[in-house]
């Protein structure tokens, strides 16, 4: 029997080795992938994310938990397709052209996965062609990250590029602000990783 409570605690405390042990044991016992996600991993990420929103946890704890989450996800990701799990939305995420900072972008990617979304991680230095490729693979939200004031302007090009399509462009990163998002006409902005999940939820019209 999988101890879902122990799995949630291991993720929230960032205990990667414990997460690996619990998930591996569960897979050997042919545990249902959906239960692992819906009763273990997704609620754990939601809990740490909500704590973060309430200022009861801070970025270091979020990063540490997200890394443990990623460790577990990496083990089950190859099996998700075969489990017949229905996608609730597909998001392409990448750090914009000219910028190679990845840690914040990776955190948002894991938080989105942790909320049950399909995420295509395009890495760093992404031009519009890279985002286009992901849209061809079914992404309907494009999330752009930038850590440098010098690379923020490229977000405007991405927004312009997808203008008039069904693709929504959302932006974030340390120097990015709501005012900048409004100015370039982005479909959404979040100042932190948990807010990005809420933003995506609202764009898909899901309850927040």
């Amino acid at each position, binding site marked *: 029997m999988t101890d879902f409570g122990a799995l949630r605690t291991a993720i929230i405390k960032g205990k990667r080795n414990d997460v690996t042990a619990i998930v591996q044991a569960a897979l050997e016992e042919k545990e249902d992938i959906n239960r692992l996600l819906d009763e273990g991993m997704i609620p754990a990420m939601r809990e740490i994310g909500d704590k973060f929103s309430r*200022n009861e946890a*801070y*970025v*270091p*704890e979020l*990063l*540490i938990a997200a*890394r443990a989450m990623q460790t577990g996800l990496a083990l089950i990701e190859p099996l998700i397709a075969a489990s017949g799990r229905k996608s609730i939305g597909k998001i392409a995420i990448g750090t914009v*052209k*000219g*910028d*190679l*900072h*990845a*840690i914040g972008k*990776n955190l948002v990617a894991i938080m989105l996965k942790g909320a049950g979304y399909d995420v295509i991680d395009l890495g*760093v*230095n992404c031009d519009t062609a890279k985002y286009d490729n992901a849209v061809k693979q079914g992404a309907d939200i494009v999330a752009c990250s930038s*850590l*440098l*004031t*010098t*690379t923020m302007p490229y977000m405007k090009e991405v927004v312009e590029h997808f203008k008039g399509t069904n693709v929504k462009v959302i932006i974030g990163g340390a*120097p990015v602000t709501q005012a900048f998002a409004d100015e370039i006409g982005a479909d959404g902005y979040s100042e932190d990783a948990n807010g990005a999940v809420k933003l995506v939820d609202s764009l898909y019209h899901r309850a927040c």
Partner: protein
Amino acid sequence: MKLELTRREKTESLADLLETQGSPLDLRCGGNGTCGRCRVQLLSGTYRIDGEEISVSPPGISAKACRTVLTSENGCVEVPESSRRSVSGSILADWTGTPPPHIPEPVIGIDIGTTTVAAVKLVNGTIAARASAFNGQSRFGDNVISRIVHAGSSPEALEEERKAVADTINELLAELDASDCVRIAVAGNTVMSLLFHGIDPTPVGTMPFLPPTRCFPIRTAHDCGLLSAPPAIPVLTVPAIAGYVGGDLVAGIARTNPQPGEMLVDIGTNCEIVFRTSETIFCTAAAAGPAFEGGGIPCGSRAVEGAIDHFFPDGTFSVLGGGNARGLCGSAMIDFLAVLRRKEQLNEFGRLQPEAERFAFTDSLSISEEEISQLLKAKAAVAAGIRTLADYCATPVKRILLAGGFARYLDLANAKAIGMLPDLDCRIVGNTSLAGAAELAAKPEMLPELERLSAEPRELPLNTLPEFENNFIDGLMLP
């Protein structure tokens, strides 16, 4: 301090207006309204704050001066001491190490830091005078990226930044009396060196972060706008290695001559690291952020008079220059993390035990858990930079040489206890950028050697190494 104001232009910010009246404010975010360091109390007049018109009644409304415009003809504001931009940074005029070369003619070496500019005058191989001041470019932002953005916005803005640093240097030259000086040499990070020469640093702002030039011509003081020095004397510049590893580090390599297994680390807003292996020299830079210099930490301070520089296990502390504590500088923040962790008043994630939102140093100085998390990020960047570079080179680190102003006050045992530095032989080597510049001023024939040195290191972009993120996350925790 209470100030009466008269409006000049209808759109001029209160910060700019105060600057022209000789009351420069702390605009470390570049006047973008994000840091809140330039707050003033509005006592009378009408104002527009972020587009919203207000008239002052009752007096005492707190406003960010960079986002506020005086709309009435006259007004009156109270400028708190904490919002003023300090114009002297004299405590940082530090220089240790081997004695300077022995030449009779006076020469001047200058370290152009993003935050502080330091200068030293050498006569007959001894230090005749030192001076330092905050870099006048600070009003365009407290970090190199803000400076790049501003300089790239127009040729006038580039000239503004060039002139700002030249003005700062001129003040120092006047203080040192440069009238008998025969040569000047400068060292700085790559963006500072480019701006000093009036070269647009825009390419350093985006991938692949290449500087327009690494080496700089020898120019006259007059051509560099150094009007406080004899106009015809030569000004030499220490060459840079890469966009984020500058002449300050080249000067450091020249001064310390790291041996295989030795690592030179300069901790600042940007943490630069140079590591010599048996085959070659590697270098890299990690963005530590301005937390250790007080950026984003309301109780934080630069290492100036009135800053708490050390925090002790019994809750007491020492203050630079004695007097009342006005803030904590980076070394005290590191002491704080180490002391509280040792007493189990902080858990491994940097959360206060028993649960509390803030820790108070004095009645007016306290730090929040969120701000502690900023410190953890800064120390994680340093730790991850050192570890990732050492692992990549597959060479054990024998010794760490700590350069720069921050290291000067550092309690090494505490820095190791919180996991910022590995538990190895660490030596504080002082401001090697300033010392290297002074050495070049005294020995101009070493410029070709510096150019050779600057071409040697292989630059390693940390963000391209997958282990960096892992090491960074490991580094966030308190051992």
